């Protein structure tokens, strides 16, 4: 160190670099200010194209469009309105939970217990209605609050005790699956509501006999999630928390609380998702949601949200869910081997991340 200092400074003696640098600085200043800062990058067609390429959702958007075209060419059954609405309904529940998981991923955390929370809350919701005679809407409210409370536990243990969320939620996965089995005794819990009960209609009916209400639930939840994430201070702090936690803390952001809230959002959304499924099946199963966390995480990752946080979007997650839904549906329509589905899904996940990484590299 001492050696370095001497070597650095000795040859230039008194006054040394000073005048030099001053001269350079003066020269720079007399040459006028550096090129004026513009508000954004290049505009116009080229600018728009660059902006499009820069979008995180670019790869998943192209994948969605290509997959749609490919399946439509492969079978005329695919692009029919009925089938599109079917796929939209089939991804709704997944996409609703995935919205919460997107928040979590962006803030740099993961929740492996989502499938179990979803299954457990389904059993609780059905039990409240069937065994304790609760009004279904009140039961739904209770279950959403319970979901948030479970998220609070996940978040608090993770952030206050410094245990990785991977471990904490793996424990919660097991606890709640056991809880669902204990609460139900292993048997399905049936709700005996009239077929035209408003609860059933609103959770899993159709609007004007055509569009499934679950699709509206998905649109509502995702639009709200997207708004919060991209337009509010909270959303901005979620990105900062996952992007550079230390920087966020120095900037006065309570990152522990941000993460805990994200766990709570995720838990609460599992409650809504459980209600939508219960409305559809009128029966809750203790094993519902087993392994579901992997599908949900796949949708989020395909949608361009990285596991390590700091980036991602709800739009991407929606497209990721759409890709998964189209694959499942399309393979059945095409009559492909059933065991091909996991292979196809896995390949799409890897391909999506690969394309994303390549684009990002070229950009930087």
């Amino acid at each position, binding site marked *: 160190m001492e050696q370095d200092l001497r070597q650095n400074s000795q040859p230039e003696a008194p006054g040394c670099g000073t005048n030099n640098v001053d001269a350079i600085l003066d020269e720079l200043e007399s040459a006028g200010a550096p090129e004026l800062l513009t508000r954004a990058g290049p505009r116009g067609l080229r600018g728009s194209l660059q902006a499009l390429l820069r979008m995180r959702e670019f790869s998943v958007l192209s994948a969605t469009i290509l997959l749609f075209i490919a399946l439509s060419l492969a079978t005329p059954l695919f692009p029919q309105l009925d089938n599109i609405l079917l796929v939209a309904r089939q991804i709704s529940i997944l996409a609703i939970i995935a919205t919460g998981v997107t928040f979590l991923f962006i803030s740099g955390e993961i929740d492996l217990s989502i499938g179990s929370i979803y299954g457990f809350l389904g059993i609780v919701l059905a039990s409240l209605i069937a065994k304790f005679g609760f009004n279904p809407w009140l039961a739904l409210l209770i279950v959403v609050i319970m979901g948030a409370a479970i998220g609070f536990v996940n978040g608090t243990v993770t952030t206050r005790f410094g245990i990785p969320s991977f471990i904490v939620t793996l424990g919660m996965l097991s606890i709640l699956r056991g809880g669902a089995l204990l609460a139900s005794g292993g048997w*399905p819990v049936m709700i005996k509501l009239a077929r035209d009960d408003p609860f059933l209609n609103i959770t899993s009916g159709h609007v004007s006999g055509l569009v499934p209400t679950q699709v509206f639930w998905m649109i509502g939840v995702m639009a709200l999630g997207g708004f919060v994430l991209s337009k509010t201070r909270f959303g901005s702090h979620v990105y900062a928390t996952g992007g550079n936690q230390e920087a966020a803390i120095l900037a006065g952001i309570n990152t522990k609380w941000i993460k805990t809230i994200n766990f709570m959002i995720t838990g609460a959304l599992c409650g809504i998702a459980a209600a939508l499924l219960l409305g559809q099946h009128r029966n809750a199963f203790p094993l519902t949601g087993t392994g579901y966390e992997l599908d949900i995480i796949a949708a989020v990752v395909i949608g361009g949200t990285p596991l390590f946080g700091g980036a991602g979007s709800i739009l991407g997650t929606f497209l990721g869910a759409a890709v998964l839904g189209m694959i499942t549906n399309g393979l*059945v329509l095409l009559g492909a081997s059933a065991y091909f589905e996991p292979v196809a899904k896995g390949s799409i996940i890897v391909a999506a991340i690969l394309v994303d990484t390549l684009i990002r590299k070229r950009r930087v």
Partner: protein
Amino acid sequence: MNRRDLLKLMAAGAGAAAFAPMFAGMSTPAFAQRKKRKVIFVTHDLNPFFVPAIVGLKDFGALAGWDTEFIGPPVHDTQKTVELQYNAIAAKPDAVGFTAVDSEAFIDPIKAAQEAGIFVVLYNTRAPGVKEATGCAYVGQDFIVAGNVAGYEICKYITKKTGRKEGKIIMPIIAPGHFALETRNLGGTQGVERYNKEFGTNFTTEPLAVTTNEAEAVAKFEAKWAAEGDQIVGWLASDFTHGFVGHMAVDKGLTDKFAVGGYDLVDFVLEGIKNGSVDFTIGQNPYAQGFLTSALIYQGLEVGYPASDIDTGAELVDATNIDKVMAREQLWKEKAKEFGLG
């Protein structure tokens, strides 16, 4: 249920299997002249157990000149099964074969199929209430009957092997809440009670949730044995996990300490019977669940008869008939590899 009923059921299953070569030898002019049909089977858990059912569907489909498809989630999952059923309906087939492991959740997709003019027959599992709600016929095991057979049988083996008059029978179950497995356990308990009444014994039953992961299941068995070994006289799985009990018995030298029974003809269960670590297993003829379901569909589509229920039986496999059964089941092992389910 007595031995004679059982033999009748077995005959029904064997009869179904005997059809295939019969058809294969025919020149099938009647089949060939029919319209090309599309038939899709959806199951709730696509595991190697369904290989004979897949082959049954394919065999019949080949005879009839159908396009066939057999799909299901890789692990038991009601939600995914329902969605696959809807996807199958969207493929606009002429007929579908569904399993209905729940009383409520499968009614909507079955009705949706019926409303779309698709002929529906249920196979393997039909939960209570589904027949009433949809009118669908069922090809598969009667689980209460099969459970009764197994419950009675395990008591016979306990008496023979241990000579004890009382004790606990553990009932491992891989999917708590699965209608078929829970019902077998229910029937199993009834069979045990029937035996208790007839012979003045006092055997009790107790369920034990396990998984299809052998290491995990065996760990639970060992823990249970360590804790209550003095009370346990038998194991009656609601599924194929009695094969895992057999492995544990061989490893720990416990084969003469308790009786071991369960369901289905999975290869390691059959090997257990062969080496004496498993006492018996109850078959349900999954080939018939593919083949005879297809036959009902055929006569419904081409001739117009409504489908009616077919019990595919409760075939008792033990040391007396194991060699014959193993020779027969060898075929599915090869087919499983072919389908990528091995």
